[in-house]
């Protein structure tokens, strides 16, 4: 445990000192600023638009962090052979995988909490300016939605670790992770689209396509599960059951990927 923690700490420090972080923070601040300016353009539902834009900005900035900083935290280790140095210490391959993941988790969480703090103040400001339009709004829901953005990033980090353990090319790992994200975001729409089409019997859809999509939906995470933007935006009630279910889904999915990654990693060679 001490070993894993030590690796997590240096991974976190390596990530948090990356200059790219400034760029992402700048972008996020720009988006929040845009939100404040734009809010007045809407005639009703300013609260809703504000929540939408803030959560999107957080999510987008978080994705940039995972894809551009996070990928390097493990990929560069293997690319540049730093891993030979790390593995020369009494540290098992499995411990390496978990330590790296934990480090990336720290990194993503701290960055996202900072963004969420910025975002909260933005929302607060807009709320003060247009108090009448924030009827259903609650910060509690907003933070829940923010937390699930973070959970989504955790799952993505696990996917990234998994692909990094398969390939020694960090660019390849990035591309695979990015594709998984794109599919994960839209898989639900596709599955339900196929269902309605099938029920309607209006178009010929081959059975093999349907079963293919079904199989894909098992392998890739349904990222729509972690999207609580609509609830936060409209102040809709959220059942605890649904929160627990979504949380459990994300955690179990990440754990499976990490276990697989540590299996693969144990068998790997580092030239």
């Amino acid at each position, binding site marked *: 445990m001490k070993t894993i923690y030590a690796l997590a700490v240096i991974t976190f420090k390596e990530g948090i000192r990356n200059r790219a972080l400034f760029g992402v923070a700048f972008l996020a601040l720009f988006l929040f600023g845009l939100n404040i300016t734009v809010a007045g353009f809407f005639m009703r539902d300013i609260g809703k638009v504000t929540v939408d834009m803030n959560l999107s900005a957080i999510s987008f900035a978080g994705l940039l962090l995972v894809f551009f900083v996070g990928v390097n935290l493990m990929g560069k280790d293997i690319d540049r052979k730093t891993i030979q140095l790390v593995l*020369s210490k009494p540290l098992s391959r499995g411990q390496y995988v978990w330590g790296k993941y934990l480090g990336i988790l720290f990194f993503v969480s701290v960055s996202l909490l900072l963004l969420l703090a910025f975002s909260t103040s933005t929302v607060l400001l807009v709320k003060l300016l247009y108090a009448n339009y924030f009827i259903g709004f609650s910060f509690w829901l907003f933070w829940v939605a923010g937390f699930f953005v973070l959970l989504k990033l955790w799952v993505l980090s696990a996917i990234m670790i998994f692909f990094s353990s398969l390939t020694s090319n960090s660019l390849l790992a990035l591309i695979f992770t990015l594709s998984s994200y794109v599919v994960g975001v839209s898989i639900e729409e596709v599955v339900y689209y196929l269902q309605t089409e099938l029920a309607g019997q209006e178009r010929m859809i081959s059975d093999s396509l349907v079963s293919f999509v079904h199989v894909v939906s098992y392998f890739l995470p349904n990222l729509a599960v972690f999207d609580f933007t609509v609830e936060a935006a409209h102040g809709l009630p959220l059942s605890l059951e649904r929160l627990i279910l979504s949380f459990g889904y994300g955690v179990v999915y990440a754990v499976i990927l990490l276990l697989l990654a540590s299996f693969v990693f144990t068998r790997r060679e580092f030239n």
Partner: protein
Amino acid sequence: MIEVEVRDVAKTYNPGLFKKNVRAVNGLSFKVNGGEVFGLIGPNGAGKSTTIRMVMGLVRPDVGRILFRGKELSGTSFRREIGYLPENPYLYDHLTLEELLFFAGRTSGMEKKEIRLRAEELVERLCLTDVHARPLRTFSKGMLQRAGICFALLHDPSTLILDEPMSGLDPVGRKMVFDLVMELKRQGKTIFFCSHILNDVERLCDRIGLLNKGCLVREFSRNELLQINDGLLFLETRILELVEIEQIEQLGGRVREFEGGHLVAIPTEEYFSLNRYFEQSGIPVKGGRSEWLSLEDLFVEIVQEQAR
């Protein structure tokens, strides 16, 4: 006691899809005894780094066994006894040396205070005190190499495995590392390293293995190397004729080609008779040499022989 034993090991690489396999190591066997300095030399691509990575467990041999203190490599605890310096170590960009060494200590199960003391000592020893709180990305190549050595030595391992420890170092840095290795040797540590810089190998090693095309071509101790030159004088002359060479050999000398002339080895007791012969035949003596065959000569000779 045998520290590291490599037994009939072979390793083939698959460099990627649709490419021919590369045989890196083929039927390699050698032993490194406790407390000795063993140097592996060989031309580029001979399989030195592969061998070292196999000993570290980073690469698995296709066939053969690798033993550390008589046991197969398994688990992680054996690495507590080993300090490893990879070739051209790349360290983390944004960490400081202090943080990196702290990590090395923690993973090796050291206490915080112990780590601090040991790190201070090593950093001072390798003249990195001024920069130990700077991010590693600002380090020069030589500084990184020395930082890598600190990383390898931090937990005071009893066995050191160094891949090209002298590369990228300036003469001062090289002297620093050289002295450090000599000191570790005095402390009774086992040191296994590979290098191109034969001068260093010659001065440091108790035993030397020459690797070529994945095979151990020759193994000799420093004494053997010294013995080649023992009790002999070496004189440089012009190119000798066949008759002259025969005559010299009859008088007890030996002749070999050397830098556009010939080198004659003369046993000390035969000096006068041979000297007389030189005088009579008018063979000029251009100068004296201290050794018959340097490690470099031997190296080139063996590698060229293999190529034929």
